[in-house]
């Protein structure tokens, strides 16, 4: 592999990694911080993608659509969490595993609703930055990947600042560890979790927009992203936003390098092998506590 190709591969990997981070950030909040076994997260990404598609049909720019959808997704997240809370958290028991099955069920149900509303065909969107590229220091980079990377960076920055600088943010970091203790600090654990889950879901609007900007979507696509998103969130060390970005980048660069060099078909084995290696060295992920 020539040096030029190597540099190009690394840069592509960084951009791709940004995309991986963007689709995983919400999971890092919902699963990493709140301990909600949110296996329906990838399906919500697909919902975000279809909602973006629907708005794009009306002539709205996909990125703008993603941002416009955030409040609605926040509300959806709040609703979903309330449902989960009423059915599981309030009743106690072994919620981790039952919650997992529950969210699987939710994912299946959402999938069917998507099929009924949008049909089973692939959907794409158009925009000026899709299919065009930018010349960057002699490298030609797809604009849509640059946008994915930029948005991932922005989201990471916003989320990690929010979590470490604000009282609510800190409460979000604490809420899964001891709810009673948090109540004793004067915070309502349920409301804290609810808004955190809302935030996590709101990121699905943006990330979903990225999903359909980057490639076509279909209703069952969420299943393909389960492994990847959970891999990123766990590799990060649950609950770390910066870790999520870094984990996304590591996976993106690895994949890109493998795809450029020979043996592209081994890319998944290399990425997930890397995950195993990292876990062997750091059993609780890169930034795990």
């Amino acid at each position, binding site marked *: 592999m020539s040096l030029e190709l190597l540099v190009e591969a690394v840069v592509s990997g960084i951009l791709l990694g940004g995309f991986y981070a963007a689709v995983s950030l919400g999971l890092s909040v919902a699963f990493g911080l709140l301990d909600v076994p949110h296996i329906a997260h990838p399906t919500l990404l697909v919902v975000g993608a279809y909602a973006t598609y629907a708005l794009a049909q009306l002539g709205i720019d996909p990125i703008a659509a993603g941002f416009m959808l955030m409040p609605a997704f926040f509300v959806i997240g709040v609703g979903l969490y309330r449902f989960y809370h009423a059915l599981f958290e309030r009743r106690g028991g072994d919620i981790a595993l039952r919650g997992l099955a529950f969210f699987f069920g939710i994912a299946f149900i959402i999938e069917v609703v998507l099929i009924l509303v949008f049909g089973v065909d692939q959907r794409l969107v158009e925009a000026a930055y899709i299919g065009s590229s930018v010349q960057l220091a002699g490298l030609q980079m797809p604009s849509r990947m640059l946008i994915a990377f930029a948005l991932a960076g922005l989201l990471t920055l916003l989320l990690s600042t929010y979590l470490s600088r604000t009282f609510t943010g800190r409460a979000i970091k604490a809420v899964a560890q001891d709810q009673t203790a948090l109540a004793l600090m004067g915070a309502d654990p349920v409301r804290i979790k609810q808004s955190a889950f809302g935030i996590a879901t709101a990121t699905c609007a943006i990330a979903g927009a990225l999903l359909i900007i980057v490639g076509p979507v279909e209703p069952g696509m969420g299943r393909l992203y389960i492994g990847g998103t959970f891999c990123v969130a766990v590799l990060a060390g649950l609950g770390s936003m910066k870790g999520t970005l870094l984990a996304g980048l590591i996976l993106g660069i690895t994949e890109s390098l493998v795809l450029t060099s020979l043996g592209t078909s081994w*890319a998944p084995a290399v990425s997930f092998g890397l995950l195993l290696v990292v876990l062997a060295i750091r059993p609780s992920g890169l930034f795990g506590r």
Partner: protein
Amino acid sequence: SAHAQEKKPVRVGFSIAQTGPLSGAGKSGLLALQIWRDDVNGRGGLLGRPVELIVYDDQSNAATVPGIYSKLLDVDKVDLLIGPYSSNLTAPVMPMVKQRNLLLIGNFALDANARLRHDKYFSSLPSASADQWAAPFFDLAKQLQGKAVALLAADAEFAQTLAGGARNEAKKRGMQLVYDQTYPPATVDFSSMLRALRVKQPDAIFVAGYPSDSAAIVRAVKEIGVGDSVKLFGGGMVGLQNAPVMQSLGSTLNGVVNYHTWVPEKSLEFPGVSSFLARYQARAKDANVDALGYYLPPFNYAIGQMLEQAVTATKSLDHKLLAKYLHDNAINTIVGTVRFNEMGEWSQSRMIYIQFRALADKNLDQFRGPGKQVVVAPAAHKTGDIVPFAAARK
């Protein structure tokens, strides 16, 4: 036909994907078969009996197929069988029909009878093998003086089979494979691969991929470019026949040469096809399926016609008689007159290669007329000459 309704229906059984990755095409095919059922019943049914479709969703998962076909045969006791959509799902059915000596019309299964050589299998796919499928593309490459070929294929069943055919055909013509890679399913970003490929300066690039990859690759080609050496780009990209994909990609598709089964070009205007498509398109919106229906639907309607002609001619539902009839006679369908060879494949391949030309963005209707998807191979159906990739993209 009031009389026909009272009689025991003729049951035609099959599974077709209505969920999962194959469901896009599957649902459109199902609609076509339902239109055929309505048509045939309107004509008084088969042997004076109404036709009933017994359809199950195989969820695009081969593991459901043995159970479903056993149910069709042992419980529903269907009179006629159609295979599931796609090769992988057909494979588990073949031993069953062979063992029970039943007639099966395969539904777009590639080379499904190669191993078992069942004498009552007939294919609806207008190509007998991967080699045959890929051949016209390499003829075009030859025509453009191509010597170096790059091959990019998804790591999944159909794409791998087709890639095998492509390798053979390239070798036959003395072409050199300068790049030959398989990419994993769910690959998001193809720029790394295209860069690695570009370095090898191929004359032709053959891609075998599925809908999401196909769209992503076509876009990446526009963004990253494939280099000036490339005169022919395309091949076996599933998905570039789907209306929503074509509409969204628009001008990005210009110059791409891809396989197809039917497009609205003069040379393919077989009797009945336009009227079928008109009826299909009228029902497509309600059924939430592909709006144009150029790919699978005419051929699924043709499956119905094959059964219909054989049953009507032999006045029987006996599989042996039906198979014999299908082997011995030309079958008239909306996709042309078909003759089967001893393997049940079309004796004359009719896989076509089209080149996208002069496409604008955001316009579905442009695909409804001729000139946009010009048939460039094979010679028998050609409606235009191949234009080198770079020139066609201008």
